[in-house]
């Protein structure tokens, strides 16, 4: 069964595996073309079904995009901290208790939530296809 850790893998992507590292003074001739195989691999990680024809189209478009990204090499960020968010807030807390979700106090019913699914619902559970093949 496929592992569901999407981005935690060490497989090299053919000619991109040895790739390029910012800040080491090593320059490849471009952030590399995003090959059709790379596109297919990334689509697989993202669980996106794409056709072979789409993979080719995206390969060309994404290569352009990533060639453009090289511009960031110009910026010296050796002493710069990352920005994750711009609110300046930290550790925002709430009282641990049950309160109505809506401002009016009107409940959001369980059936409303389950009703949003187009799949069959049984005993408060949404029925999906089998994850593991029965042997």
């Amino acid at each position, binding site marked *: 069964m496929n592992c569901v850790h999407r981005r935690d*893998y060490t497989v090299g992507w053919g000619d991109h595996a040895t790739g390029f590292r910012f800040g080491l003074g090593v320059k490849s001739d471009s952030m590399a073309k995003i090959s059709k195989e790379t596109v297919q691999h990334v689509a697989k990680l993202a669980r996106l079904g794409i056709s072979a024809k789409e993979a080719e189209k995206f390969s060309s478009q994404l290569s352009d995009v990533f060639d*453009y990204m090289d511009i960031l090499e110009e910026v010296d960020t050796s002493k710069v901290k990352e920005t994750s968010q711009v*609110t300046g807030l930290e550790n925002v807390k709430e009282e641990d208790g049950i309160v109505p979700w809506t401002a009016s106090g009107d409940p959001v019913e369980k059936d409303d939530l389950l009703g949003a699914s187009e799949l069959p619902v049984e005993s408060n559970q949404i029925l999906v296809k089998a994850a593991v093949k029965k042997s």
Partner: protein
Amino acid sequence: MANLNELTIKEIADGFRAKKFSSEDVARDCFKRIRERNDDVNAFVHLTEESALDRAREIDKEGFSAKDSLLKGIPVGLKDIFNTRGVTTTCCSPGLKDYVPPYDATVVERLRAAGMVMLGKTNMDEFACGASTEHSCFGVTKNPVDLSKVAGGSSGGSAAAVADDMCIYALGTDTGGSIRQPASLCGTYGLKVTYGRVSRSGVTAMASSWDTVGSFGKSVEDLAVILGEIAGRDRRDMTTPDEKVPDYTASLGKGVKGLKIGLPKEYFGEGIEKETKDVVMEAVKKLEAQGAEIVKISLPMTKYAIAVYYISMPAEVSANMERYDGIRFGKKASGEAEGLVDQYFVTRGEGFGDEMKRRIMIGTYVLSAGYMDAYYKKAMKVRTKIIEDFAAAFKKVDVLIGPVSPYPAFGIGEKLNDPLAMYMADALTIPASAAGLPSLACPCGVDGSGLPIGLQVIAPQFQEGLCLRVGEMV
């Protein structure tokens, strides 16, 4: 009285209280205009005429008292990204086509409590990913000023609806420019707020550290009124700080005398069309004549903003799009699938348009092992430098002014096959988004062919009042 749909919030509110016309009258004029124009413009993708007229009649029965919001009884259009209980909310995506949310977004709750009359949901780029509203499963929104041109995006439907007098005001979202740019291209006012000023609860997430909720209106005063109703802390959105909501209308009528207005040279440089620069500079000269001091400023990180955004934003988009698997909500796939994992591929393959797929893949790639440092973390560091750029500028000036878009509305289809060219449309709006700053887009003229040109007034965080004060005088 005819064509009540052409009035502003303030004019209508006065009219209601003077008993010149009713809420139902206004709503009917709006729907008349919608019937005349929506087939061409395609601003609205879903109309709620019956419930709107019911609500208008209900409000007319209640009457208007001094304590009522100025928004009471006034018709509004909501971008199809806002959860509206019992009314479809699709984000204009094939994968969410018939989704009916079981609860309202916080801003929708607040507008309901204020007495809004919701006319319907407006068109957008799928999941807010675009700058032209061409990436919608309901077709493109055409620019009301010239139907061969785009309305801009991603909030193109809301911008066009207000610009074309189909509704009195509208809500949208701005992540990298999606309110300011369509406002500018359609010739209407659009306000991007400080990140965290308005709750995003119940608003479909695109890029969670960039997304903001804002509005379109026909006057700066109207935007001040709307902001007062929707701003403020919400326990359901932990990124809304406990920052007081001032009376934004009190910022108006103060003029610009004594204010220092910075002009970032990078916003008037290479890549910006000459006519756009000229029109904006004319408006700036007017402000100078009214007593503002114009200061030349540099924001050297401007040229890196697109790269920062198109690494960082897709990363966040790819995470936010993970939930669309057709299980708890969204369309069941029509294709065959063998097993659960295969089902994800089929559902997501069918449910997302091309631009979404591109962004999800860009995001997945830049977050992957071996690439995360080079791309994602690098972009986060350059984002810090963009923020520092603005901080340094605001030590010298009160607000910054520049064009919103490097060019006026472009032709429909013109940039569709060149994603990178489309991304360049956001060059001047992304930097303020990176820093979470408020920015008000104001129409300030037209080009030789009559296409609208807009400028933006950028202020420090939580200084929307300054944006409004200066914008009023443009």
